[in-house]
C-alpha cells in the first residue's frame, strides 16, 4: 500500500512539475468558458427546451477540450520511463507491476478530476452572480460530471496502454488520440447511417455512443449502463497495459 501511495504522489508531483499540465489546465478552462458562454447565449435568445447544463455539454466546444486532454496527460507516463532508462531502476526495486500501473493511472485520474473542477465552478458562480437567473438542474449537473469522470477513466486507461507500448511520447499521444476519437466517431457514423445498418449492430452502437450518453445524462437521465461500460473497458485496457509491461520484462 505504501508503495502504491509513494508512486502515486511521485507521479502527481511530476505532473505539477511539468509545464504541460498547466497548459492543459488553462486550455480546458478557456474552452469550457466558451462552451458555457455559448450555452448562456442559447438561453438568452428565448425560452428553450434544454437547460444550461444540456447546452453546455452538447456544444461542439466541449468536445474540443475533451479529446486533447487524454493524450497530453498520459503520453508521458510510461514512455518517459523507458526513454530515460529508469525502467530498470524501477523494476529492480521490490515493486509489483500492478502497483506501478495503479500509481500512475490514479495520478492521471486525480489530475483529470482537478481539470474539471473549475468548470463545475462556472455553474455556481453563475448562480451566485445572476441570482439564479436560469434554473440549473443540479441532478443533471452532477450526473453529467459523474459520466465525465467515467469517460475519463476509460480514456485515461487507453492512454496508459498506448504509453506503455512505445518509448516515444508523440507516438503514444497520437495512438491514444486516435483510439479515443475512433470510439467517438463509430457512434456518430452508425447513427447517421441509421437504417442502412442491421438492427443488432445499431443496438450495440447505441450502447457505446459517447455523444448519446452525454446527451442523456445532461438532460437528467442517469443510466448506469454507460457507467458500467466505461468502467469495465477501463479495467480492460489497464489489464492490457499490465500484459504489455510484463511481457516486455519477462521476454525469455
Amino acid at each position, binding site marked *: 500500500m505504501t508503495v502504491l501511495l509513494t508512486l502515486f504522489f511521485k507521479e502527481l*508531483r*511530476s505532473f505539477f512539475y511539468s509545464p504541460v499540465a498547466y497548459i492543459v489546465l488553462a486550455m480546458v478552462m478557456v474552452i469550457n468558458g466558451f462552451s458555457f458562454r455559448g450555452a448562456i447565449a442559447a438561453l438568452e435568445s428565448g425560452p428553450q427546451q434544454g437547460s444550461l447544463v444540456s447546452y453546455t455539454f452538447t456544444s461542439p466546444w466541449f468536445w474540443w477540450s475533451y479529446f486533447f486532454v487524454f493524450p497530453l496527460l498520459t503520453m508521458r507516463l510510461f514512455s518517459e520511463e523507458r526513454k530515460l532508462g529508469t525502467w530498470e531502476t524501477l523494476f529492480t526495486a521490490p515493486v509489483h507491476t500492478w502497483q506501478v500501473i495503479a500509481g500512475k493511472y490514479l495520478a492521471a485520474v486525480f489530475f483529470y478530476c482537478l481539470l474539471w473542477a473549475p468548470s463545475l465552478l462556472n455553474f455556481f458562480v453563475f448562480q451566485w452572480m445572476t441570482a439564479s437567473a436560469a434554473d440549473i438542474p443540479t441532478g443533471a449537473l452532477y450526473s453529467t460530471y459523474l459520466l465525465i469522470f467515467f469517460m475519463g477513466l476509460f480514456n485515461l486507461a487507453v492512454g496508459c496502454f498506448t504509453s506503455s507500448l512505445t518509448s516515444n511520447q508523440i507516438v503514444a499521444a497520437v495512438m491514444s488520440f486516435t483510439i479515443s476519437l475512433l470510439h467517438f466517431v463509430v457512434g456518430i457514423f452508425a447513427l447517421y447511417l441509421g437504417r442502412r445498418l442491421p438492427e443488432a449492430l445499431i443496438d450495440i452502437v447505441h450502447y457505446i455512443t459517447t455523444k448519446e450518453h452525454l446527451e442523456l445524462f445532461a438532460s437528467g437521465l442517469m443510466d448506469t449502463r454507460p457507467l458500467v461500460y466505461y468502467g469495465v473497458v477501463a479495467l480492460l485496457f489497464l489489464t492490457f497495459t499490465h500484459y504489455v509491461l510484463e511481457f516486455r520484462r519477462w521476454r525469455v
Partner: protein
Amino acid sequence: MIEVTNLSKHYVGRTAVDNLTFSVEPGEVVGFLGPNGAGKSTTMRILAGYLPPSAGSAKVNGFDTFKQSIQARRSVGYMPENAPLYLDMRVKEYLHFRGALKGLSGRELRRRTGEVMEGCQLDDVRRKIIGNLSKGFRQRVALADALLGRPPLLILDEPTNGLDPNQIRHIRQLLHAFKSRQTILLSTHILSEIEASCDRILLLHHGKLRANDTPQNLVRKLRVASDVHVELTGGKDHATLLAQINGVRKVTEDKADSPWLRFTLRVEARADIRESLFDMALKNKWQVRELHRELPRLEDVFVELTMSDH
C-alpha cells in the same frame, strides 16, 4: 550469496550469456571483467531481477530471481550503467522516493537517506535538481540509491564510469568500508580498480566465463608473456642477436640517451631469459646498465584471454 547455474540468455541471432556457472560467497568483492558486449551487463541485469534467464537459474540470497523475484530484489542494491535517474526530482526527494519503494518508512527512511547522502558526499547538493547535476554527482546519487536499503548484495555496473580520479578514489574507499558487511559484485574496465579492490575476478568473453580466480592466481597460472628491458652499448647488430635468444618473441628498440641503446624484449610465458642475455652480453663485450624483467600484469591477462576474436 549468488549462485548461478548454467545461466544462458539468448536474443534473436545472438547469445548474450552462454552457460555461465559461478558462485559468490557472502562478504566477497567480485569483479566482472570483459570486453564490451561480453555479457557482463546482461548477467547483472538477470541477477538484479530485471531480465529473465533463457535457461539455467540465478539465485540471490537463496531466492531465485525469476520465481521469487520480489524477495530476490529486496536483497539487491542495483546500480545500472549510466545511472538512469529522474531528472526533474531533487536529490533528497529522489532518495526518499527510492527508500519508500524499498520498504523503508518514517524515521528509518529519513535517517537512512541522511546516512547515504553523507556517505556519498551528497550533502551539498541535497536540494539540487538532478537534471542540473554533473555526471559525477549523478553517479553518486545512483550509488546512494543502491545503498539505501542496506541490501546484503550490491550489484554495481561500471560505478566509476566517467568519474575523475578523486571521485574514483572516494568510491573505492566507500566500497572498502562496506566490504565486510555486504557482498559486492562490480563490473569495470579499470583494471587497477579490480586489482585494488577485488578478491576475485570473473572474466567474461562472448558470454562465456573465461576465468574465475583471484587476480594474483590469474597472473601466475596463465601463460602470459612478459617484458624484459635492457639498456646496453658497445658492439653491433644487437637486435638480431637478442632475437636469437631462446624464448624471445619480439625485440623492439626504445628511446635512450646515445650511445646507450634500450631494447624491450617480449618473452614467452614462464621463460626467464635474463641469464642468457647476460651471457650474450659478456660474450659480445656489451656494457649493460639496466636489465629488468617486468612481470605480467592483469592487463596482459585480459588481452591474452580476449585477444582471440579481435
